[in-house]
């Protein structure tokens, strides 16, 4: 059975927004299953038009490119609905392929994961 990596993406600060994708894409390349959980300002990564505004000079790919890599690699992307009012977004504002999840989704998937990373 493939190893599972769960990544908690809690910030749109480029220094914190990019590492989940660098490590997550590496995990996919290593045949791991990856779930990314976006909450708080990290929701801006999966908001329509949001990733384009998060820029990190010197990074190997842009954030939209990284999102494409993760989605094509089969990563599961979950947006935390409890943080929607905080990030001032609605379900319709999310990019395609992102599901809504909550506390139960995070804790149960995290328990089942071999590796949990938080940013």
């Amino acid at each position: 059975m493939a190893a599972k990596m769960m990544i908690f993406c809690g910030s749109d600060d480029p220094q914190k927004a990019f590492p989940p994708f660098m490590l997550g894409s590496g995990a996919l390349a290593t045949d791991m299953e990856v779930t990314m959980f976006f909450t708080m300002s990290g929701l801006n990564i999966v908001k329509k038009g949001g990733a384009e505004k998060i820029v990190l000079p010197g990074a190997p790919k842009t954030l939209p490119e990284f999102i494409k890599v993760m989605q094509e690699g089969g990563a599961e992307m979950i947006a935390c609905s409890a943080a929607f009012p905080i990030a001032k977004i609605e379900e319709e504002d999310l990019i395609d392929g992102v599901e809504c999840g909550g506390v139960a989704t995070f804790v149960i998937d995290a328990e089942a994961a071999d590796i949990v990373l938080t940013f």
Partner: protein
Amino acid sequence: MMAEVDLENIEVAKVVDARGMACPGPLLEAKKSIGTVSVGQTIEILSGDASTKNDLPRWAAKVGHDFLGALAGEGYDRLFITRKK
């Protein structure tokens, strides 16, 4: 999970109105309420939170209850769980 359950006509022992609560409110209400019905009885949780329809099936599977399915209300979901233990 049971297949082909007629949710519209299912007998519900308790309806929990968690509309207006953000996650994890509906989950915590489900946890509290399932303990107030007998094994084999079903509770219905009403939730307007977009996550609940994904959270409750995972939670039920994890803790050993049956998630029967969901019906869409107007602006909320109706979710059905049978207590199994």
